[in-house]
């Protein structure tokens, strides 16, 4: 009985071990370093609303784009066994399209924001479909297929808006990127929760999760079982397209302007990292969305911790790298096997000594 429960514990947590351990280490480290790191206060922001403020809130808030992207990236990784490195560039395109539509109207209303959001979604989905077609129909490895958009995506974004960094100023955009009046939680956080719920519902009511996993584990076997693996791969890229549009719009709204060069810069690497820290196999197959989401928060918690320790922003990368290396070394299969071996040896020794005592 005890053995069985142990198994469940192992299977249930197995994949989430790395991200949870990472979060725990960071939390404990910060508690020892400076307990006030976690304090949350309510303050009045410039618009006179009561909002929450503190390091923890800024971590959760700042990681929103990454969390949304990581969810889409997890699906693509699981289905195709590769990663999309064009998400940052595609988000810049989606953001540009969003701003272009907003600017083409006389004034920014709730209706025009919705229309702009839909247009941005469609544009990002089209680019996702382009990547997906290369991957699924032409059987090109995802990283290479998306290298095309990675190379030229930001230039396309530049071209859409005629080259200037266009500001959008409107209370609605401010509400999307900051706080909705009356709600103390930052809106991007709510958007992440909404996206996560939508994913959960989709997985609950359709077989998408099962199909994606089976395509990722063995594409030809899945095809023989009647799953259209080409379509599933294409679909995963289109879903990532929607996530990209959402992330791009959060990014644009947060700054109140579109800058095609700096919007979500280097986010593709962080998104892949979030998927990997989440314990998902980058070679495809089984996946856990929750792991990737936690992975995204781990990355931002690390960054904010480093900022709090007065590390210059240009040097953060080096410390980040060291922590990543330590994390993955702890999670590597060889080290895990060695630890398991050591544990069983200690157990056996205990049993032998107990028998000797009897």
């Amino acid at each position: 009985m005890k053995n069985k429960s142990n198994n469940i514990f192992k299977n249930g947590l197995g994949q989430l071990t790395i991200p949870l351990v990472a979060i725990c280490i960071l939390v404990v480290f910060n508690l020892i370093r400076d307990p006030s790191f976690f304090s949350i206060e309510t303050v009045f922001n410039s618009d006179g609303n009561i909002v929450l403020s503190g390091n923890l809130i800024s971590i959760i808030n700042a990681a929103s784009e990454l969390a949304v992207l990581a969810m889409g990236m997890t699906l693509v990784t699981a289905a195709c066994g590769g990663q999309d490195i064009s998400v940052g560039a595609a988000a810049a395109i989606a953001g540009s399209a969003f701003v272009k539509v907003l600017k083409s109207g006389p004034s920014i209303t709730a209706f025009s924001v919705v229309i702009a959001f839909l247009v941005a979604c469609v544009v990002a989905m089209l680019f996702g479909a382009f990547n997906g077609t290369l991957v699924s129909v032409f059987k090109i490895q995802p990283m290479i297929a998306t290298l095309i958009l990675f190379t030229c995506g930001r230039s396309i974004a530049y071209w859409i808006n005629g080259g200037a960094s266009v500001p959008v100023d409107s209370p609605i955009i401010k509400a999307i990127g900051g706080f909705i009046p009356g709600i103390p939680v930052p809106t991007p956080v709510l958007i992440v929760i909404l996206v996560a719920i939508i994913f959960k519902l989709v997985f609950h009511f359709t077989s998408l999760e099962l199909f994606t996993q089976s395509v990722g584990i063995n594409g030809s076997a899945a095809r023989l079982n009647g799953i259209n693996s080409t379509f599933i791969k294409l679909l995963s890229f289109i879903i990532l397209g929607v996530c990209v549009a959402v992330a791009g719009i959060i990014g644009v709204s947060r700054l109140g302007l579109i800058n095609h060069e700096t919007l979500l810069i280097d986010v593709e690497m962080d998104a892949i990292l979030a998927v990997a820290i989440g314990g998902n196999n980058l070679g495809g197959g089984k996946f856990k969305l929750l792991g990737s989401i936690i992975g995204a928060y781990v990355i931002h918690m690390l960054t904010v911790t480093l900022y709090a320790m007065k590390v210059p922003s240009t040097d953060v990368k080096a410390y980040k790298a060291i922590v990543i290396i330590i994390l993955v070394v702890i999670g590597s299969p060889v080290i895990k096997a060695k630890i398991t071996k050591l544990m069983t040896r200690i157990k056996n020794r205990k049993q032998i000594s107990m028998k000797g005592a009897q």
Partner: protein
Amino acid sequence: MNNKVKRREPLTDTQLLMTIAICIFVVMYIAAMLGFRGGFLHVQQIFDMLNDNAPLIIVACGLTIVMIGGGIDISVGAVTSLVAMSCSLYLNKGGNMAVSVLIALGIGLAFGLLQGYLISYLEIQPFIITLAGMFLARGLTTILSVNPQKVEHADFKALMNANQNTIKIPWLGYISPKNGNLIPATLELGVVIALACVIIIFLLLRFHKLGRGFYAIGGNQTSALMLGINVKFTRFMSYVICGVLSGIAGYVLLMHSGAGNATNAAGMEMNAIAAAIIGGTLLSGGVGNVIGTFFGTMILTTINKIVVASPLNAPWWQKITTGGMLCIFIILQSVVLSVRSKGRKK
């Protein structure tokens, strides 16, 4: 009879993809010569392409080895930048020339050893480790110095001078339209180093046991193990060689530019990956060739030169055209390979 022999040894995938790359380069360059004339008619144009891209060629060679072995290394550009920065700082503090070369090789070797050990012996996914390596190298570069460091060392200036002025070929030069003087074609010493790297690695991959091992582990790891190849050690070596080559590339870059800069070699890893792919290396491993990679680099550079020469010379068109060309090559490769594999089944 002759026919039969031919049938027994058809072109391998590696040779086929390499041939495509070479043909595309030749066709593209001839088209550029016919279409734009001007600079493309001078030999110096090719030499300039080589001069500017010697570090990229070296880095792409290293990446080709790693990719043939079925891995990926995205830290190469960052390591190159770190080497250039640390060497320039060391030289500005009045260091020794020989030691600066050793520093360059040492940094490359250290990154190669660390990443290779973690990837092959601890079985961690190469993308993550080399991504961390990239962050580490970029971060260390900015920790060393955020500002560009111009090298003022006397010996190094002599070396830079030698780099630019040793190889001058008058009969390949052209007569300047401005004052009628003969401008000899100039090739930098860095290019010689790059070409030497290409040839050495070509020979290594073609004839040495280790080189054949890279193809074996990239093609099928289990079969390679059955054949008695030390898979872990071979994979380890592929990253070590790649790291050392990044170190060499860093020094060549410093010889070319004469300054260490935190933004040096930005995006070089993606260019190198693109060059290797266009040259016919598959990311899945087991297929590839450094000669192809060399021509892949030249194709990328030619695209840029053509865009600059063409009326579409706006900053955004250059990248969009590069992306479009990349798209065509990638689809072409995929179609050719799938047609071949269908033909084989029959």
